């Protein structure tokens, strides 16, 4: 076996993969391309004639298999605990302890205190589960560091502590087990204090293991010695080399030849030169690489090396290369991943970008300030003209101030002693902060505060400012992130890149899936081992740290402003604070805000604002780090979660758990696909945008530099007529609002231009993550393809591909679509473009001075980009070979309804949204508009005022938004608002009539949609009913507690004795959870809001504590479920498409239901879109959802009392069969019919299960009767019906038996979509 190490490693892993490789992906590009080439003419769209792709079959198989559920216990009410829940959901006090411990360990800030907390945590069940190996390792490391550093005169105690911890780990007295890092640390300890050659003064420790004992333990745990000797614990080449020697010696003594060889290989790897061609200029002499032959490695499933065998001695070269740890690590990581590690130079800029963001910012600010000084512009008046100069000045002052303040806090805390965390409830404002503030240098803290505050301006709907609570949290969070980033890059280990498809398998086969998982787990372990342990901060810590910094900043940051004294007419200058704190009223609530001095906010819309941007706001220069775990992926060093959620611990826990179960491989893989799509800035468009921007005029959604709307005139009778005054003030307000919006638009365009400018000429990437429904979004918030028309116009794919005949045609169709001409069939759209070729060429040549045809397009900037591209293509020598990088879109036509129609097999609905075969695109909006007009005819006959007024005015546009949002559960109120806006915009209906008219139209529209999409309605109702029932249910293990009114809950001050009703309410903690076909668990976060008051020096802020769960908001859970479910499906469809595009080598990007690719790949992507949609909907999505509910909520009970006042649950009758209840025991045993009860149902519940026909009927009657009474009943007075009395006897019903039956499925066959031309178009 002759092979170099590199190629060897690339092929080898994981081994079984090779054996089963199928030619599935062979069916791609070349063959397909020829198949789709139309012989002549232009058929509108050419479906592939080929049989379904093998990988599509795999996909269908995958979707039909039972999805792996991620199951967690339902959160407990806040006054209860149990070990299982503690394991999954950490509470805030514990989290606080963890973060203090983390901060105290950092840089050995206060190791004794950290140790104290550590011991306390270990003593409790709650804490113990949180302490993993990495925490133990951190402590061992800290102890050894203490011995070496802070306490070097008395090292014995610390080293002893380290050995003690090791023995506990090794003796399995803890949850955690030793890792490579642990062994490396202990080896170091031994080398330093025990070996004869003792690096430091030898100490005699009785319980120290010698290398032989350590080696034995390693072997027992199957931890490869190579990983130990290359561990990051070794910081010097010397120590690592000594460790290898010590281990080798032990191995020789123990006669372990394999280990000796393995160590020998490590040694020689470390002595190898790096590939000289990688980063050395050619002029340097090429050194010969040492040959490494006959190395056999065995890998574990997860990619670890479990065994290495070297046959024959390694020949020693004549020249000696010093042992180098870096080299060893680099080579090893290549071995571990079986792929090339990111080449250093490629990543250099991105690394620099992320690594030293604050340092770079400082440099830039400083440079600017110096520049002004040199130019003699440093007098006060001139200085105030530049944002950067100000920021530099603030930074100068702030870092000094912070240093002093932090010193002060440290002293205070020392004076107060160590009682701080024990009375965390009464923690004073800054007490306990010192460990956190010491994590970063004052210089960095200062810059973080400045940059964050500047960047936050205009958020939260506050003009020229931000909400205080949000600002404090954001600054605190930024400090936390920066600390973590520092930890991430501390060891400077190489970061794995996803090298695209490394396996020959389809993503969807079992093997392919396992392969993906194995690779990911290996890479994750590697990354985790490379980083120091850190933990999340609680909201309170974030707010406090944020408050400390913001308060100091607001105190020192000033600007110089000049004005005129009204009385004397003199010019005066005044030094004013740059930020100030104030209060605003929002819907009656007093809300604290931090506002910018008007002088600064003015500049934010004009000047360069690059300094306020952090790399986590920017696209990446290298392919994003692949998603390795829930919080590993995307940016290289900036921690990001793979899911965005707002304060929901439950979502976090599910995600973490699903990830560790390996349920998210395809989610990760598809996000990697999206992240790996290369982009670049469209230079032509950028230049034009810049020209417009600099001119300061309004142009196609670019707001003008100065707001250009006419200011309302003050009426003459302003002073005497309160009415005229009021009208004037309203208009004035409107005007001010317009101006504020203009300003914030201007700021947002400024960001886009700034970013585009920074990346001109680069290939850029957008790391993606998902929202809680699984929809993917790019992480950078300002400029991305998901942004507005301008952002999209500025972007194009990083690679160009030849158009081909079909591509050229699609480019034309794309142009027609962007212009708004998208209702016609494809041929007509092409002719539209041919008819406007003059306009198109003119737009491309003279965008700003010409006829400006493009500016009238629906999406002007993208239209312009397409005009330019089309012209270039048509004028090139051969348009078909023209290399085009412009993305072309295929959009779902009312995608939500498409999913509903497919779910329900609804033939009529399917036709309306183009699932069916038609020769023209059908437009559901037009159709509904026509239906409404028709319905109005009846009313016109009856002389209805609004029917008459609106006849002929119900256009597509009037109903569009309402139709679109019906699927997402728009209410009548919402619909009326949307329609009112549309009617107002028409301008031909008197303003005062709009509201009533809108009411009338909204009613009609909703009625028409109901008729048209009956299938959708039924499914919505079903989803809604299920969610409502689930949200009312109580997990089986809580039943006793929920009904035991005598029990008291909580402790001490909080102890409450509750009534049954309030207790039941408190126990309703069950949220709707389901799993998407790709395995992502989705948890609806809607719960009661409870906010906690935190006193800061600025103001008291109220923030919610995500770690303290509250009861669910049942109505929100129910109303949001249908739209969330549909979104989870469209997200799944998108991801399936992304994966399949990757398999077939098609470039892919998406904006939810708009899928993008190169023009030449449209035909291929169209086939994929249809195949994935069909595969998805052939997998009985609803049936599987129903099954999941039955499993997930097995044993959950609904209190009958909470069903009494509900008027939902249509059709629950037939399935509602079992009724159980604690009081039902009275029923004699003979009445208990267990005949067809599943056995476990009985054993699970000691209480008897009643099944008499009579009781059923009574309960059903009781459940239904209040529904009928509901309307008549006047408020408050509960009417006791006989039926209700019966129900009190039976307190609970089984959730699963009450779930309504699935709605009837219609006759529509989803595979018809294959032939549908306009499904996505």
């Amino acid at each position, binding site marked *: 076996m002759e092979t170099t190490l590199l190629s060897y490693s690339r092929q080898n892993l994981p081994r079984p993969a090779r054996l089963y490789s199928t030619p599935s992906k062979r069916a791609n590009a070349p063959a397909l391309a020829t198949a789709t080439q139309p012989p002549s003419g232009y058929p509108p769209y050419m479906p592939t004639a080929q049989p379904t792709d093998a990988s599509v079959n795999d996909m269908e198989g995958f979707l039909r298999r039972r999805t792996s559920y991620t199951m967690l216990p339902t959160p407990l009410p806040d006054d209860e605990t149990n070990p299982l829940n503690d394991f999954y959901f950490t509470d805030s006090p514990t989290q606080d302890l963890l973060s203090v411990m983390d901060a105290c360990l950092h840089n050995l800030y206060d190791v004794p205190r950290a140790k104290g907390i550590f011991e306390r945590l270990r003593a409790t069940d709650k804490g113990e589960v949180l302490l993993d190996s990495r925490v133990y390792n951190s402590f061992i490391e800290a102890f050894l560091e203490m011995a070496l550093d802070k306490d070097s005169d008395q090292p014995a105690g610390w080293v002893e502590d380290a050995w003690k911890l090791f023995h506990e780990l090794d003796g399995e007295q803890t949850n955690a087990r030793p890792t490579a890092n642990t062994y490396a640390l202990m080896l170091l300890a031994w080398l330093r204090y025990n070996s004869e050659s003792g690096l430091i003064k030898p100490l005699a420790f009785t319980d120290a293991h010698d290398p032989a004992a350590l080696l034995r333990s390693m072997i027992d745990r199957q931890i490869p010695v190579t990983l130990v000797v290359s561990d990051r614990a070794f910081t010097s080449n010397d120590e690592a080399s000594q460790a290898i020697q010590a281990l080798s010696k032990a191995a020789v003594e123990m006669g372990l030849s394999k280990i000796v060889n393995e160590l020998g290989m490590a040694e020689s790897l470390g002595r190898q030169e790096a590939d000289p061609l990688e980063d050395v200029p050619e002029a340097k002499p090429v050194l010969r690489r040492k040959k490494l032959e006959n190395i056999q490695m065995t890998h574990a499933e997860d990619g670890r090396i479990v065994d290495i065998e070297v046959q024959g001695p390694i020949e020693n070269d004549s020249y000696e290369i010093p042992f180098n740890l870096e080299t060893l690590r680099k080579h090893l990581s290549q071995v571990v991943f079986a792929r090339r590690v990111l080449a250093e130079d490629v990543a250099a800029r991105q690394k620099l970008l992320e690594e030293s963001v604050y340092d770079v910012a400082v440099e830039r600010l400083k440079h600017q300030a110096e520049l002004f000084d040199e130019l003699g512009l440093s007098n006060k008046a001139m200085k105030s003209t530049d944002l950067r100069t100000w920021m530099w000045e603030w930074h100068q002052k702030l870092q000094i101030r912070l240093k002093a303040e932090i010193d002060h806090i440290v002293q205070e805390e020392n004076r107060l002693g160590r009682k701080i965390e024990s009375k965390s409830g009464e923690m004073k404002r800054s007490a306990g902060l010192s460990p956190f503030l010491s994590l970063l240098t004052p210089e960095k803290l200062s810059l973080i505060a400045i940059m964050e505050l500047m960047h936050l301006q*205009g*958020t*939260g*709907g*506050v*003009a020229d*400012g931000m909400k205080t609570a949000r600002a404090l949290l954001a600054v605190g969070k930024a400090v936390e992130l920066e600390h973590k980033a520092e930890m991430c890059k501390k060891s400077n280990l190489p970061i794995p890149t996803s090298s695209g498809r490394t396996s020959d398998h389809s993503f969807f086969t079992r093997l392919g899936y396992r392969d993906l998982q194995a690779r990911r787990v290996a890479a994750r372990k590697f990354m985790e081992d490379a980083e120091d342990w850190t933990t999340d901060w609680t909201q309170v810590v974030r707010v406090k740290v944020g408050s400390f910094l913001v308060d100091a900043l607001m105190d020192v940051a000033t600007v110089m*402003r000049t*004005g*005129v*004294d*009204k*009385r004397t007419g003199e010019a*005066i200058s*005044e*030094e*004013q*604070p*740059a*930020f*100030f*704190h*104030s*209060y*605003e*009223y*929002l819907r009656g609530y007093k809300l604290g*805000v931090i*506002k910018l*001095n*008007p002088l600064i906010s003015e500049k934010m819309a004009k000047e360069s604002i690059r300094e306020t941007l952090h790399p986590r706001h920017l696209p990446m220069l290298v392919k994003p780090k692949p998603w390795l775990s829930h919080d590993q992926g995307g940016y290289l060093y900036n921690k990001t979660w793979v899911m965005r959620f707002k304060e929901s611990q439950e979502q976090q826990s599910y995600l973490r758990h699903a990830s560790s179960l390996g349920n998210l491989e395809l989610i990760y893989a598809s996000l990697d696909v999206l992240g790996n799509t290369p982009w670049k800035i469209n230079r032509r468009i950028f230049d034009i945008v810049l020209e417009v921007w600099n001119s300061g005029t309004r142009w196609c959604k670019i707001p003008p530099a100065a707001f250009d709307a006419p200011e309302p005139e003050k009426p003459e009778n302003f*002073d*005497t*007529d*309160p*009415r005229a*005054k*009021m009208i004037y*003030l309203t208009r*004035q*307000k409107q005007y*001010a*609002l317009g101006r*504020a*919006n203009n300003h*914030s*638009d201007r*700021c*947002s365009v400024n*960001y886009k231009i700034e970013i585009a400018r920074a990346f001109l000429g680069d290939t850029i990437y957008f790391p993606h993550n998902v929202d809680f429904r699984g929809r993917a*979004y790019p992480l950078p*918030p*300002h400029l991305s393809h*998901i*942004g*507005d028309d301008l952002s999209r116009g500025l972007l194009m794919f990083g690679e160009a591909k030849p158009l081909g005949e079909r591509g050229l045609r699609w480019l034309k169709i794309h142009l027609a679509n962007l212009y708004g001409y998208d209702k016609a069939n494809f041929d007509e759209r092409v002719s539209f473009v041919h008819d406007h070729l003059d306009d198109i060429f003119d737009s491309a040549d003279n965008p700003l001075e010409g006829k400006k045809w493009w500016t009238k397009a629906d999406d002007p900037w993208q239209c312009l980009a397409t005009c330019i591209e089309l012209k270039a293509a048509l004028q090139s020598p051969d348009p078909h070979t023209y290399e085009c990088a412009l993305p072309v879109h295929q959009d779902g036509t009312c995608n939500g309804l498409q999913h509903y129609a497919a779910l329900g097999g609804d033939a009529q609905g399917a036709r309306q949204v183009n699932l069916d075969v038609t020769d023209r695109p059908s437009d559901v909006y037009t159709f509904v508009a026509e239906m409404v007009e028709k319905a109005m005819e009846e009313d016109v006959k009856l002389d209805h005022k609004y029917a008459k007024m609106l006849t002929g005015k119900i256009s597509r546009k009037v109903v569009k938004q309402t139709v679109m949002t019906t699927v997402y559960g728009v209410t009548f109120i919402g619909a009326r608002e949307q329609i009112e806006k549309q009617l107002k915009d028409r301008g031909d209906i008197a303003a005062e009539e709009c509201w009533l008219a809108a009411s009338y139209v909204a009613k009609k529209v909703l009625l028409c949609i109901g008729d048209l999409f009956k299938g959708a309605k039924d499914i919505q109702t079903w989803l809604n009913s299920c969610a409502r029932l689930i949200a009312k249910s109580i997990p089986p293990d809580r039943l006793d507690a929920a009904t035991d009114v005598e029990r008291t809950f909580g402790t001490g001050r909080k102890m409450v004795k509750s009534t049954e009703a309030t207790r039941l309410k408190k126990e309703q903690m069950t949220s709707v959870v389901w799993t998407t076909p790709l395995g992502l668990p989705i948890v609806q976060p809607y719960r009661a809001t409870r906010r906690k008051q935190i006193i800061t020096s600025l103001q008291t802020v109220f923030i919610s504590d995500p770690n303290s769960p509250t009861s669910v908001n049942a109505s929100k859970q129910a109303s949001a479920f249908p739209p969330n479910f549909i979104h989870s499906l469209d997200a799944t469809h998108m991801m399936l498409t992304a994966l399949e595009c990757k398999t077939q080598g098609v470039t892919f990007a998406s*904006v*939810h239901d708009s899928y993008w690719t190169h023009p030449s790949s449209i035909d291929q992507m169209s086939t994929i879109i249809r195949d994935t949609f069909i595969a998805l909907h052939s997998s009985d999505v609803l049936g599987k959802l129903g099954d999941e509910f039955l499993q997930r909520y097995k044993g959950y009970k609904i209190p009958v009392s909470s069903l009494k006042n509900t008027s939902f649950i249509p059709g629950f009758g037939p399935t509602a069969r079992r009724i159980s209840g604690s009081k039902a025991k009275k029923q004699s045993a003979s009445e208990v019919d267990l005949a067809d009860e599943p056995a476990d149902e009985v054993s699970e519940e000691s209480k008897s299960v009643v099944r008499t026909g009579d009781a059923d009927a009574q309960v059903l009657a009781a459940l239904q009767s209040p529904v009928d009474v509901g309307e008549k009943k006047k*408020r*408050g007075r509960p009417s006791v019906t006989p039926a209700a009395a019966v129900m009190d006897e039976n307190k609970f019903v089984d959730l699963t038996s009450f779930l309504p039956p699935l709605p009837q499925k219609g006759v529509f066959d989803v595979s018809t979509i294959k032939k549908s031309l306009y499904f996505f178009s």
Partner: protein
Amino acid sequence: MLNLRPSGYFKSTLRWSCRRTFTSQSRLPPLPPPSEWKDIFSSSTVSSRDRVSLRAPETAQLIAESFLSGASSANGEGKIVIEAFPGPGALSRALLELPASNIQKLIILEDHPDYLKYLKPLEAADSRVKVVPLSGFDWDTYSHIEEIGLLDDVKTVPWSSGLHPQLHFISHLQHTIKGEQLIAQLFRCIPDGTWLYKYGRVPMSFVLSDWVWERISAVPPNSNRCKLSVIAEATATCTLSLDPAKLLPYDDHFHPITTKYTAEKRPQPRRPGYPLVAMNLIPHDDQLITKGMLEKWDFCLRRLFVLKSTPLKKAISSLAPGAQTMLKMLTDSSLPDSQRVDIGKAPRHLTLADWALVIRAFDNWPFAPEDLMISDAFTRQNAVRVVL
């Protein structure tokens, strides 16, 4: 007819018939017996739920007298009265029952159909009455009565020539936030001489909840001191026209009666059952808030009362960036004592004179914000939007 000895069973009926006798002596069309109001004037609809009206005729009589005759500072002859929110018209009737010379014209503003049924007939019975079916809450209503000539005989009297001899505004104040807004707006019309004040110093009278009265009349350091108290103090003299005890207990005098409905979300002072008082309001001859300064008063008062218990020296910074410089102007030692403000006081402890000085300093400060419309701070969500 009163010779019959009533049995217990008839007692209540008889009492009503006595009342009826009382009203039937009047030439005015009668109101339904108070016991039936509950059913006739349903209080369940949103529009009427918030309205509290006088029900007992005797009480209405007392209040009418306290507004327009005898001890009232606004008494006089030949009055043109505009009455807003009369309800079914107990007070309107009482006003018409005053000596005929007292009132020359009564313009009634009411838009609630149930009440109009009992108001419209007054027009026929008394030629002095004009019923305008519009709400007293809308400025349009006043333009309208002017346009249709109802105020043609109102003279314009210069502010300095004393109280307006004819015009008088009377209203029940709605029991809601709207009522509080209305009276706040009316006070604010005084300094600039808008609304009815373009005719001169028009006195006003209100039946209003004790809660609003507490706020209007609060002086430092009363914890009810608020923006409304300061504006009221600056623009007019407000006095109770009647001993509040005469209007208690609430249920004997007003409609609707107290409810025990537990799911009530409104705060106590805004629910039916909260005590009411009667108040006369006489605008000051000398207005402290000069023309054009109202916006600045509004701005400073609103902003600073947000921090009503924070010492001025700290609270002032929330006015605008750099507003601390105003402190220098307020404490300038070259000024006489009377022109300095103790900046250690919290906004709620500041006297009217203190406020005048604060607003003067604000007016003189070159960097005072120009745009004083506070509610505009919130525009829309997030400048960085994500297209869904």
